[in-house]
């Protein structure tokens, strides 16, 4: 019981207090622990957490496949994807660089290289002649397989040159073009991921059409601010004249007057006065697109971003901060014990 309950709580409380004190106490050993050691511990734990996460993912998906649960085919696909990534990252590294160490004056070597780098013979000769004397020429695109690289080396040797194979270093192969992992990321993961996200545009359009309705005051506010942000944030918003927006505002106010007073004469008077007022003001000022700025969409959009939006965001952040503080105190004092399964 001590090992399962008291000890983990004691460790969490001790480390928690030490980390907290690190921000307030000018003690070099505590600061060093918080700034250096603790962060390194965290890195190590995070690495192991990734490992555990991968195992957990495999276990969960494998169980789905074994039990033939609903959608088990997707689980099988997830396992296949995981296995392929694992093999690409740890087993079939790829990225075999071919370094041509001797090629001077040999047309045969240039012919072989021209095929490999998709250039004509003259361009390849120019590339080779630009390589400083004594330096080697490395073919730009590394090979996926050792066999592929060996075949090119054999052709170069047969043509009278010399060449060596240098595989990318372990770890660095991930970031090297020509490795299987890199290929997988660029040609499988990237298009799939981008496609999934791109679908949002269609769903947002469809959902806005159906859900953005003027049902009450709050929904109206949301709708109007949404439209202002959508149009004000893009260049086309700068081409919508402030006077056009003023006319829309006048029409909306007249609609309000009509609903409130329910009198046609008053409505007509409000409409004529409003439209005439805006038109006369427009002629006097020369209809500048961005004036009066209070009705210019990009300015309105900026105002919404910088005022109501920031006020709301700050309130949420302060709330979250206080929540995190309260939770942290509960963890440090041993009140919150969900991490030991209680």
């Amino acid at each position: 019981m001590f090992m399962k309950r008291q000890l983990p709580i004691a460790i969490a409380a001790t480390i928690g207090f030490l980390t907290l004190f690190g921000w307030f106490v000018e003690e070099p050993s505590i600061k060093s622990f918080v700034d250096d050691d603790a962060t390194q511990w965290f890195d190590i734990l995070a690495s192991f957490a990734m490992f555990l996460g991968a195992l957990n993912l495999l276990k969960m998906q494998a169980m789905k496949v074994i039990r033939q649960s609903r959608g088990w085919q997707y689980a099988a696909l997830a396992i296949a994807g995981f296995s392929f990534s694992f093999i690409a990252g740890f087993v079939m590294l790829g990225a075999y660089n071919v370094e041509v160490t001797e090629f001077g004056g040999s047309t045969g070597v240039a012919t072989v290289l021209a095929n490999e780098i998709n250039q004509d013979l003259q361009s390849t000769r120019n590339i080779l002649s630009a390589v400083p004397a004594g330096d080697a020429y490395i073919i730009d695109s590394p090979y996926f397989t050792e066999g592929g690289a060996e075949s090119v080396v054999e052709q170069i040797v047969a043509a009278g040159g010399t060449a060596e194979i240098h595989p990318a270093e372990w770890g660095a192969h991930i970031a090297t073009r020509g490795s299987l992992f890199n290929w997988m990321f660029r040609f499988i993961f990237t298009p799939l991921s981008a496609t999934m996200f791109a679908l949002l545009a269609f769903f947002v359009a469809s959902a806005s059409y159906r859900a953005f309705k003027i049902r009450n005051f709050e929904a109206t506010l949301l709708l109007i601010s949404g439209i202002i942000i959508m149009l004000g944030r893009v260049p086309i918003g700068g081409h919508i004249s402030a006077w056009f927006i003023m006319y829309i505002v006048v029409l909306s106010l007249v609609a309000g007057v009509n609903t409130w007073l329910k009198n046609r004469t008053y409505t007509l008077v409000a409409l004529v006065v409003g439209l005439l007022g805006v038109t006369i003001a427009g002629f006097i000022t020369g209809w500048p697109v961005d004036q009066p700025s209070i009705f210019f969409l990009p300015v309105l959009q900026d105002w919404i971003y910088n005022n109501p939006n920031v006020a709301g965001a700050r309130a949420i952040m302060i709330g979250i901060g206080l929540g995190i503080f309260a939770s942290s105190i509960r963890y440090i004092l041993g009140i919150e014990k969900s991490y030991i399964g209680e």
Partner: protein
Amino acid sequence: MEKFLDFIVKAGSLDRRVIFVVIALAVMLPLFFPLGLPIRPTNSSQQVYDVVEELEAGDKALLSFEYGPSTKPEIHPMAVALLRHLMSKDVKVYITCLWPDGQFMAMEALDQVAVNQYGKVYGEDYVLLGYRPGAEAIIKGLVSNIRKVYTVDSRGDFLDDIPMMVGVNQVADFDFLFSASAGYPGTVEWVQYAADPVGITMSTGTTSIQVNEVMPYVQSGQIKGILGGMPGAAEYESLIGQAGIGTSGMDAQSVAHVIIVVFIIFGNISFFVERRRSKKY
């Protein structure tokens, strides 16, 4: 009139496949036939530009790539534009990644800008440190001692063997910090654990949806400027005078936004007609 109202009510329940086709056309056509709408830089984009403009040749900029392929259309154009600006000023660029995908995004941006456009030398003008797991802990580690987090760079070269790493030991040694972020860990964590405690000048580029979360830090001056989504990227491209994918994407985004607004207005008209009829009967 009644027939017209019938038509509006019917149109109110438009098949969503029709909406999808219209949106697809609205996005694709401007990409093939650009409208060339002029870009108007906002204050926050101008602020980022001004901060970079103040850097001098040889200054050190730490860039962090925290995005992946899903958010690439929004963040990548601004990362490329910022790299162009930094490299044109001969600022030394150091890149870290808090997201595993970020490393691939950084490689692509560096190939495009550092290698193909400016012919910069790896290890002397720019270095890609790569990805490390650990989120905030990595940032704290970089603030304390870079070499405790990174012993080697993304190519497997020891940091001590890289010429431009000489004398660079912690975040405080940099002159500028930029986070190209699409979520957690990202901009907020860089402010909390690096920019604020160290006092380094920091700017950021985020997805449009993330601007809300980051804006309080911009207003308080903890972050000097923000590039918000694709419009932010387009604005930065116009500021540096090199149009890129952000600029061409803005025409498509403009038209798509107008179409969505038209759909919303149309949906509301239909909603009101229907409501009025149901009250009447």
